[in-house]
């Protein structure tokens, strides 16, 4: 806060070419992705080149940028106040991620609580349903869409079975995997605090493995959904919310696992000290955040 005594030493990098390149790379990546998607939609041979150039630029420059920040820290440039700036930065970044998921959860709740009853002819806007698709019966998961000719419903849903059969229910095991990984990452943190290198490597390695296990299970779940259940992105609002919520969560798990993997490599190099392990800590906050999102997902997407 304002009472810091080491303020004069706040390190301000003089200039840097990373951010400009990141901005340019992000543009290429997204413009390239746009070309790609539009080509697909038009039925043309998709052109990926720009997308790959952009993504590679992002990856390479981010690598150098992070390496530089670590190097600055080793050179003693990162004073306590700057570290606080990093902490604030990461904290509020996670908050913005929470709001990103909030939009999708909002869509899920709105659809379930309001749209489907209306489409089924109930409530304030029930006439919509009566005029458009009088046969439509609201239920969750939606197995038959209001207009089944346009959006064919799923054959089966991912909804949780009764408690007794959770033993064979994959999302339940995914919950177990992810929840335990939150615990193991916490143990890894404790190991840093106690300067116990072996334990740190063990627990952090286990966390990464659990992250990978989660992703494999989820891939398995998606394959199952697409191939056996007939549940796809285009199965109507159930498939839309299901795949967008779990998909973006899975994307975040992928990122989180990758970040933790980097921390593991840094742990091998002995980068962390008990009072100086911001990289690890922010990775673990991110991981806990991803975990909390999953719990909400499990409750609202699978169980309820």
């Amino acid at each position, binding site marked *: 806060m304002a009472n810091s005594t080491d303020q004069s030493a706040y390190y*301000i990098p*003089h200039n840097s070419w990373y951010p*400009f390149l990141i901005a340019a790379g992000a*543009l290429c990546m997204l413009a390239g992705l746009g070309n790609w998607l539009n080509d697909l*939609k038009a039925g043309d041979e998709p052109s990926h080149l720009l997308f790959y150039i952009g993504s590679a630029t992002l990856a390479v420059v981010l690598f150098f940028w992070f390496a530089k920040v670590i190097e*600055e820290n080793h050179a003693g440039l990162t004073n306590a106040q700057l570290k606080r700036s990093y902490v604030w930065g990461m904290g*509020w970044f996670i908050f913005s991620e929470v709001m*990103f998921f909030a939009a999708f959860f909002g869509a899920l709740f709105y659809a379930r609580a309001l749209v489907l009853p209306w489409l089924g002819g109930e409530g304030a806007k029930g006439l919509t349903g009566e005029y458009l698709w009088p046969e439509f019966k609201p239920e969750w998961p939606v197995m038959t869409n209001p207009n089944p000719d346009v959006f064919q419903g799923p054959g089966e849903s991912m909804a949780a079975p009764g408690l007794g059969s959770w033993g064979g229910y994959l999302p339940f095991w995914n919950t177990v995997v992810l929840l335990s990984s939150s615990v193991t990452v916490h143990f890894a943190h404790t190991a840093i605090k106690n300067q116990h290198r072996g334990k740190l490597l063990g627990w952090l390695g286990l966390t990464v493995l659990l992250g990978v296990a989660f992703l494999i299970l989820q891939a398995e779940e998606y394959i199952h959904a697409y191939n056996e259940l007939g549940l796809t*992105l285009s199965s109507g609002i159930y498939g*839309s919310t299901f795949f967008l919520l779990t998909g973006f969560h899975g994307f975040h798990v992928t990122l989180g696992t990758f970040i933790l993997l980097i921390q593991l490599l840094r742990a091998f190099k002995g980068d962390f000290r008990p009072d100086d392990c911001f990289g690890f800590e922010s990775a673990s906050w991110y991981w806990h955040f991803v975990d909390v999102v999953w719990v909400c997902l499990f409750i609202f997407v699978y169980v309820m």
Partner: protein
Amino acid sequence: MSEVVVAHHDDHHDHGPDKGLARWLFTTNHKDIGTLYLWFSFTMFLIGGVMALIIRTELFQPGLQFIDPAFFNQMTTNHGLIMVFGAIMPAFVGLANWLVPMMVGAPDMALPRMNNLSFWILPFAFAMLISTLFMEGGGPNFGWTFYAPLSTTYAPDTVTYFIFGVHLMGASSIMGSINIIATILNMRAPGMTLMKMPLFVWTWLITAYLLLAVMPVLAGAVTMMLFDIHFGTSFFNAAGGGDPVMFQHIFWFFGHPEVYIMILPAFGIVSQIIPTFARKPLFGYDSMVYATASIAFLSFIVWAHHMFTVGMPLAGQLFFMYSTMLIAVPTGVKVFNWTATMWRGSMTFETPMLFAIAFVILFTIGGFSGLMLAITPVDYQYHDTYFVVAHFHYVLVPGALFSIIAAVYYWLPKWCGRMYDESLGKLHFWLSFIGVNVTFFPQHFSGLAGMPRRIPDYALQFADFNMVSSIGAFIFGFSQVFFLYVLIKTIRSGEPATDRVWEGAHGLEWTLPSPAPYHSFTTPPNVTDAEAHS
């Protein structure tokens, strides 16, 4: 990697700016980045302004004269998008960059490299957005509010680039807000307690939280659009159990806080300027802070006042009507405080003060028309007419934009060390003041009489009002080109400015020399009572 070592051991060696283009591309300096933001914003303002004049040219007379309706739609859409995301918001971020570190006594922004990134994303994003206008099928044509299914099922192919453009802008805003929050909360000089901060800093702190909360929601909204368009989902398609109206809810959950994102920093600016030229401390500093916070909170629970005519359960209509009217209370507190600050002050009317006073009056008119729109049954008649256009242009042009112009006149001497020409400034003010009112005041009447918005042609009875409006628009447009001239003249050949610049100015930024040195406060300044909250 070598400058790490250099910077470490050589504390006295004061880095000046780099030479040439590299200075602007790779800079981490808050003043350079602030300058970039401000010039970018001005460029976007001129581009968006040209679009506005194309619209007004077509509307000069009834009938279709100059452009075809499809292009007209692209003009209204891109005018709105560019002005909101390219002109107003970046201008405020530019001001925050220049001013927040100086005002809180910090050496720079908290995260200087990310600061550069937040800026440079924007020119790229807008290059992509604007390039769509030249692509096959044309650019976005579904209005700046991009309601589904216009923006999904019936959208031109370029909507994909629009979506990614919005993602980029969102990333820029989120990083910018994180930076501003970290700077304000972590970089204040000793003694600069929260309740001593200048109001501009306070309003930006709260704005940054609004941005953090709603930009990700906007990103979520366009992401759902992307999936509806390319991956077969049905979020906004009732045939699959989704709902186009859901799009509007999500959009306005972002959109209403967004309009406050565009006005809270303006409140802050006006709260800095009026005390200076009234030569009195701001009336009711604490209540200003609390009012800003209440407005920010309320802005999250009023969004559906944009959707009264869409159809909504009665309870919803009542709730959103009353919550909207509630916002007028803290807003009224602010207007009262500004007026009370001027009351019995020894006022002088330099250009920044003129713009600030015009802000208070004309923004209040916009607030009143907002209150009219907030009344559900009344909105049934006004919705989607020119009355709404008049309302939001009154809060945005003589509101947000005037505050930005006022800020530029007020702080420019500090930035470049030179004084603008007072008579040219006053001329710019009167031209803008007349232009803005001639443009937008008649739109209240054509709106009340039922003229729909976003239509290139109109019934004959609206002809006079529209002609007046178009004339006003050209006056206003050219007076902003004149502003550019005033600016360039100041920067190149203005009289040298004093450090304090304004007799009645208080605040840490005025303790620095004019022009302010490349690095603001390398050692934290002493915050005296005289410089605390002005």
